[in-house]
């Protein structure tokens, strides 16, 4: 089975909006999380979906799933304090019903422009290698500064990529990575691939797309709105 884990446990404190988390913000009549879920729900290779959500927003999510006829969501998992703990909760839930060889596609709910092609490459990559990360080459030069005042290093651009999601894994590997991290009291990782690397396992790259950006600020929200032009142009 190929299972999507959609992370919607964040509160979006970088947005300034206080009445709802960013994944529930409406974009032309549909919340961001619904746009994201629809891509997975309509993907022929995705068999089931788990959504990790804040407890107090669980009912709102249930209403949206019903209203927009999202049919593949099988598990609603309570979010943890950190991203890592949220994924861990999902892994724990899935481990009960799923087999070790199942593929877990972990994706941010606030990346609604993920495509079927990216999801398919993730599934194929995870089946072949056990762990893959979606990346895009960086067009800008990345500067490393420890104190935020002067440059320490300018790493070689051709070796640098920007990490996106999905990140996809064989369930057994993801489980092992999280258990090791917990045993070592590491609970603040923002990236599951990091945990897999700490196991000494390889993580392969899958090509993402610039448009698969994450909505974290108002600028991103503006960009997303500009990008989604409703395809209802009247033609005579």
């Amino acid at each position, binding site marked *: 089975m190929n299972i999507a884990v959609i992370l919607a446990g964040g509160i979006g404190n970088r947005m300034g909006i206080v009445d709802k988390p960013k994944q529930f913000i409406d974009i032309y009549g549909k919340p961001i999380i619904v746009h994201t879920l629809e891509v997975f729900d309509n993907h022929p290779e995705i068999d089931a979906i788990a959504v990790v959500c804040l407890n107090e927003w669980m009912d709102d999510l249930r209403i949206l799933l019903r209203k927009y006829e999202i049919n593949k969501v099988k598990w609603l998992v309570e979010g943890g304090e950190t991203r890592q703990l949220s994924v861990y909760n999902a892994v724990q839930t899935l481990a009960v019903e799923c087999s070790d060889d199942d593929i877990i596609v972990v994706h941010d709910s606030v990346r*609604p422009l993920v495509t079927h092609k990216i999801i398919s490459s993730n599934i194929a990559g995870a089946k072949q290698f056990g762990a893959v990360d979606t990346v895009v080459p960086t067009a800008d030069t990345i500067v490393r500064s420890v104190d935020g005042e002067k440059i320490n290093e300018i790493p070689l651009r051709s070796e640098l990529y920007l990490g996106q999601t999905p990140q996809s894994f064989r369930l057994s590997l993801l489980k092992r990575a999280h258990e090791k991290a917990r045993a070592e009291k590491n609970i603040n990782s923002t990236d599951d691939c990091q945990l897999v690397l700490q196991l000494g396992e390889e993580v392969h790259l899958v090509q993402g797309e610039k448009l698969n950006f994450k909505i974290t600020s108002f600028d991103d929200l503006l960009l997303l709105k500009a990008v*989604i032009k409703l395809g209802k142009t009247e033609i005579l």
Partner: protein
Amino acid sequence: MLGKSFKIVEPRRFDLYIDDLVCASDEAIVKIEYAAICKADLRYYLGARDKRTLGFKYPMNLLHEAVGSIILDRTNRFKVGERVVLVPNIVPKEKHDCAHCVCARPDLGENYCPNSFFASSNYNGFAREYVNYPVEYLLKIPINLEPQLATFAELISVAISAYRRLSLNGKETIGVWGDGIVGYLLSTTLRHVHQGKIVVVGKDKGKLRQFKAHAHYLAGDPKISEEELEIAYECVGGGFSAEAINEIIDQIVVGGRIGLTGVAEEQVGINTRKILEKGLSLYGVTRSNKNDFEKALALLENEKFQADIAQLVLKELMINDITDFYRAFEAELENKSLGKNILRFNL
């Protein structure tokens, strides 16, 4: 659901759009997999229509010859993954009350309805990742048919409509003028559905030789008149339409019938005196309906017919992004061979 789409916004300029697809209760969402570029698409690409017409058309998704796979069907008629051809002409149910309704007329049909929509003409076409489409206008492709070949279903359906419109008895001798893809598809289709003799007339000897016909002539050959053509189809179009139509008028028998399939931007001067003298009938036969598509797909089940159509596939062009899409249009503009490039969408 969000999906990418390429719209033409001005001559030789496509923009990437992200469309939000809403699947209605009588619709399915289809992932576009294969498509082909038609001459009408090229005219929009080059802006070869008058400015006012283009002002009403742009921005628009081009392409109306396409095959896709079902990813969601609200009606449960199709299974996820099933391959379908998209019939590009849609007659909206709510507007189906014209004073002189032609939809039910067997000779004309829904594609001549003034209220109908035609993809990539007065409605968005299939140059996109997904399309939500009425299931009524989706047709499952035969299991033994390669999807690349199914993109020709639209042109074959036009050939079938051209045959249907002239209500033939099956035994007439038919002349087909034009050595391009329409002429090839029409003569090939006629060979499979008609028992009478098929004669083709063109200017390019090399191309003409590939045609499935009983006799081949270069335009201007006086021997054409010996064929006693009762029916003729003009498949030339453009600036050479007049030349071809006038030769048909000269060569066809008294009382003959002529089907016109070529599109010309300029008005065409034809010998009306001779039309009157010989009592000829002219028919416009470029539009097919859903029933013609069904017949086209049934014909495409025939493996011999498939082999004849496969000769038209030049190259498969992968469309990974909008730059590939530009390249495909430029390649089709340059194409002088008998056949088409097939676009494989991988967006």
